[in-house]
């Protein structure tokens, strides 16, 4: 189960002061706080039962109220000698400091202030975190502020959205739930009533937000952005592209089903395409780097667009 003694000791050294700072703690909530199962937490408490001051006399050992534990409550006593947690390791402090940098790029004005001061306090404990940074493209702070305000108030917003695959401005009214990131871009995750489904909107393409007074509906939990649900849309079609070295970059920017190297510096890349307009644009951008498209019909609209543009250029 991979639960090493080192991880357990680290947890115990935090658990003992935690349970003293939180008398009569709830078993399940404590397990969640420490990121373990309740079963593991009970095993931890069983270890503590055998720990205490040297000498091992009954009065020297940590007490855990086992009757309370049966009722899902944790009451720990006789552990004053471990009243404070172990100091941060450098990795712990920097993992939070770097995470705060990512959060700062996504925050609104109010949160950004707290993020900066919290980070300064962490960085004063250990140097070095400033050498690691995360940049997120998340549009304008006032856009994020409006969206955060609407999410907190539970009301719908009207977006001024510069869609990538349509190249034009739309004004969807959506129920906003979260500001999330994927691959270095910030997104609004929202329920789009007119599509009757979850949609994401890139924050740097939202030109304006109007907060309405229309309460949001109940839509259950939004799927996690990082889990690749964009790729799992049931209406997605499989398209295979053979690319020269000049087109290989798409593998690093777009989720692929498979990538295979063929003889002669050609790469065969299989993609899931949910939006034909997106594929049209991708093919237009790749241009001479594309050796073959399968099925060939998938290229028809790109070919039509290229011909239309060429005709206008000649005019």
């Amino acid at each position, binding site marked *: 189960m991979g639960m090493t003694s080192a991880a357990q000791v680290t947890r115990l050294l935090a658990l003992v002061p*935690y349970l003293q700072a939180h008398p009569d703690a709830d078993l399940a909530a404590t397990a969640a706080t420490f990121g373990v199962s309740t079963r593991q937490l009970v095993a931890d408490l069983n270890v503590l039962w055998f720990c205490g001051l040297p000498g091992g006399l009954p009065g020297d050992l940590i007490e855990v109220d086992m009757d309370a534990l049966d009722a899902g409550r944790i009451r720990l006593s006789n552990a004053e000698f471990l009243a404070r947690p172990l100091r941060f390791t450098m990795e712990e402090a920097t993992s939070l400091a770097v995470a705060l940098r990512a959060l700062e790029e996504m925050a609104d004005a109010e949160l950004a202030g707290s993020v900066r001061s919290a980070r300064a306090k962490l960085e004063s404990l250990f140097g070095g975190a400033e050498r690691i940074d995360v940049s997120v493209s998340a549009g304008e702070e006032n856009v994020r502020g409006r969206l955060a305000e609407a999410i907190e108030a539970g009301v719908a917003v009207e977006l001024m959205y510069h869609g990538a695959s349509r190249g034009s401005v739309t004004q969807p009214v959506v129920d906003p739930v979260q500001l999330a990131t994927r691959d*270095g871009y910030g997104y609004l995750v929202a329920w789009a009533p007119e599509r009757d489904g979850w949609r994401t909107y890139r924050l740097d393409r939202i030109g304006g937000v109007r907060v309405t007074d229309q309460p949001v509906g109940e839509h259950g939990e939004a799927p996690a952005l990082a889990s690749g649900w964009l790729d799992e849309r049931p209406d997605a079609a499989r398209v295979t592209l053979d690319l020269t070295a000049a087109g290989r970059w798409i593998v690093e920017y777009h989720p692929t089903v498979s990538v295979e190297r063929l003889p002669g510096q050609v790469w065969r890349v299989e993609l899931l395409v949910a939006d034909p307009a997106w594929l049209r644009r991708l093919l237009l951008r790749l241009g001479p780097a594309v050796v073959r498209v399968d099925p060939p019909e998938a290229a028809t609209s790109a070919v039509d667009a290229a011909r239309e543009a060429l005709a206008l250029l000649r005019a």
Partner: protein
Amino acid sequence: MRGTTPGSLGGVSARKSERILNLTICLLMARRFVEREQIRTLVEGYQGLSQATFERTFERDKDELRALGVPVETGSNNPLFPDEVGYRIRRRDFELPPLEFDAGELAALGVASGVWDSARLAERATQAVAKLRASGLDPDASRVAAFAPSVAAHEPGFEVLWQATLEQRPVAFRYRSRPRVVEPWRLTSRTGAWYLIGLDRTRGEGRSFKLSRLESEARFAGDPGTIALPDPDVVAAHLASLEARRDAPALVAVREGAAGDLIRFAEPADARVPEGYRAWRVELGRDAAGDLAWYGADVLPLDPPELVAAVRAHLEAVAAWA
């Protein structure tokens, strides 16, 4: 008396945790250095072990504690007999110092602890917040429920390069078919990909490395604190070169209502354009022909002539597929 061994999740590793925790408490409570023989008598898990087994077990436990960040000090109580070595943990070095975070800062830290999409860093961040909670500082995440950023770090070399960058120690890996020794200056994530900027000792110059293109495991190639950082401008120049450069001016015709993202920060211009189009001055990046072809007939290049020729050649390649 308490019962015998703990339940099913216990066993060897639980007994080891128990022994290490008892050792910690023993050394933390001691006012003087505790000698090995005393440790062997005082800490329950060592009792009954043979001399050789005790020595081996104690050495391992001590190393493990240090790896967890517990400051186990070595020294002697007797200046006349400095060979009589003992151990202690000073409380002031052990305990998390009092930290003052206000409610807003704590909420930010609560969100930050969930940012990592990387098993190891997620675990570290969770541990750090558990320590804050253990000192009585509880983040209230509901204040900032709207914010859910995440940072992925799945590149195989990431953990070694992260540590090397923090500790300023050189690393070795294969990149573009060559073995390299690199002095890490900066680790940076751009559009979701991690890059290392550093001095490539093999070539004697600074450069950036994309972590997803490392051709081997990364390993340490020197001790912590053994590299010097360059002038901040040098790092800044490398960072700037990672950004998609958009500094080539161009004149384009854009169909009314289309390509909003391209013209959002552009200036309108006067030029002869097809019916239903308007002229704009924009700044383009390195792959300008591909960037404009992306818009199909919604955006037409007008000037400079090399750009017009490049876009035309690009689109002709697409038109030739049919």
